[in-house]
């Protein structure tokens, strides 16, 4: 049953694989290649974090949450501004202690937000068309974008996790000049890994996690055995809010907290298409593939194309993910790890 569709997927994988090693074959130095790959992987981790929020909500409520990007922005703004204001309010030292307290408060804010969204948006729309819910989340997006700036301000803010921005050079003995990696990216990777591990345990091992998966499968049956849908929705939106907060913190520390964070949601879309809308590991792997693919195509394929077609510039990074997602939609619409629809006759 599954083998029938594997051919095209393998073909696509082989093409991607060849594309991946092509720069090496073309004689690019290994050290530089690894550096680009690592950079891509780390950017990919950040995409994964945003994609994770999508997957969580889609799994539990079948809603494609357009507002995930806005939630990232909102959470990051809350975190940045609270960390800035708290020392003045309660007199705790600025820097990491303030950031930690701000993180706790921002988590609380995201939980309250989840409750409000459930109450005001989801509950009245129960048993309506999925399209109605999609439109509702679109509304939430615009509300959060605007409202976030109303309370938190609309400048570019900094989140300082106390990590030096200086890159570290590793493996100097193996490659000429070594490989540059940034500590910030490393920390981000570790945070993402811990978060994913925590979520995996939560979903697989706890009663609430099981209930979430049950609701994702069949919400009527879940109701029939007494799983309260309203509570499940609050939980899942709160978890997605928390993931948005972590994503916002990491991205914000890297790029500064600004309006463009909300656009990340659009970058996460190809990631979930690639990995599968219902798969947490898929979101992670999808993010990594897209992160690496983007960087490699930008750095190595870009110059080749420019030379060959006499183009004005690169910019492959911007559309690469979407083309890849499109290919996947044609070949394997459920994504790499998405749940197949189980049909029995």
């Amino acid at each position, binding site marked *: 049953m599954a083998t029938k569709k594997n051919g095209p997927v393998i073909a696509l994988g082989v093409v991607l694989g060849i594309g991946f090693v092509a720069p090496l074959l073309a004689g690019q130095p290994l050290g530089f290649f690894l550096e680009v790959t690592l950079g891509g992987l780390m950017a990919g981790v950040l995409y994964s974090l945003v994609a994770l929020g999508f997957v969580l909500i889609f799994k539990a409520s079948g809603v494609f949450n357009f507002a995930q990007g806005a939630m990232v922005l909102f959470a990051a703004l809350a975190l940045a501004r609270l960390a800035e204001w708290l020392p003045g309010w309660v007199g705790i030292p600025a820097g990491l202690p303030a950031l930690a307290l701000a993180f706790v408060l921002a988590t609380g804010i995201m939980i309250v937000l989840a409750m409000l969204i459930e109450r005001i948006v989801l509950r009245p729309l129960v048993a309506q068309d999925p399209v109605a819910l999609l439109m509702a989340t679109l509304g939430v997006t615009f509300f959060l974008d605007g409202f976030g700036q109303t309370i938190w301000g609309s400048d570019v803010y900094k989140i300082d996790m106390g990590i030096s921005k200086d890159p570290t050079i590793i493996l100097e003995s193996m490659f000429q000049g070594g490989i540059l990696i940034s500590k910030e990216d490393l920390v981000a990777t570790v945070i993402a890994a811990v978060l994913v591990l925590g979520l995996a345990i939560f979903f697989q091992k706890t009663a609430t996690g099981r*209930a979430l998966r049950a609701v994702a499968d069949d919400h009527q049956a879940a*109701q029939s055995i007494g799983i309260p849908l309203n509570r499940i929705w609050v939980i899942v939106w709160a978890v997605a809010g928390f993931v948005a907060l972590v994503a916002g913190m990491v991205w914000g520390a890297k790029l500064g907290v600004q309006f463009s964070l909300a656009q990340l949601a659009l970058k996460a879309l190809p990631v979930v298409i690639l990995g599968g809308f219902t798969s947490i590991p898929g979101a992670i792997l999808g993010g990594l593939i897209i992160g690496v693919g983007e960087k490699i195509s930008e750095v190595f394929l870009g110059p080749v194309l420019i030379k060959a077609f006499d183009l004005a510039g690169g910019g492959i990074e911007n559309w690469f993910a979407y083309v890849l997602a499109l290919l996947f939609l044609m070949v394997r619409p459920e994504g790499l790890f998405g749940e197949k629809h189980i049909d029995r006759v």
Partner: protein
Amino acid sequence: MSALPAVSPPAAGTLLSVNGIEVIYNHVILVLKGVSFNVPQGGIVALLGGNGAGKTTTLRAVSRLLKGERGEVTKGSIEYQGERIDNLSPYDLVKRGVVQVMEGRHCFAHLSVEENLLTGAYTRNLSRADLDVSLEKVYAYFPRLKTRRTSQSGYTSGGEQQMTAIGRALMASPTMILLDEPSMGLAPQIVEEIFEIVKDLNTKEQVSFLLAEQNTNVALKYSNYGYILENGRIVMDGEAASLANNEDVKEFYLGVSSGQRKSFRDGKNYKRRKRWLA
């Protein structure tokens, strides 16, 4: 036996009593037109009738699962253990021991059989050890589920899925199970197997059942009392044995006619049934 039962006050030992409920879907479609019946403590009561008679709607009205289908109880009352339950949430109802097993099994396809069962205990907040005790109890009734405990339930057979659905309901430690069309799409042998277990649960665990079935034969064999629904009304009720011997029931629901084969020229039966339904 009366063709149109009067609403009798619930006798002592009545677990569930439904009084003249009316259900409307989408604000316009009147599906139940005043349905009344009782389920005694420890009984197995069958709701019989053809497609679209209102059996599932009745069960959903009791279990409060109508809202998701845009249905609403507009008249009448539903009492469980002497208390009105018309305004409880499904969660509260399950906590009080009323669990519905839906038509078409509705297992969680991507969860393993055991995970399916475990979700049934969601409202009970059990410790791991107590959960295991409950699981073992369910496995004792459905040994077949134990051998398939790690399989994704979407890939198990129809009979196993029906067992999973009933086992899942059992995990909530119910006093009453609303069982909707358990025989649907199953081989006669499996149907008997499942009904034997239902009977077992009834006698050993004192679980009461409200059973909606199209398979009149099997349903009457295993239940104590039956109500026949047609077109949103109860048209007949009685002890299961007497219903099974009733000429009309035999002819309309069991496919057994009293005399020899009838010719289509003989329109009497059709008229009799029409009068009977009106």
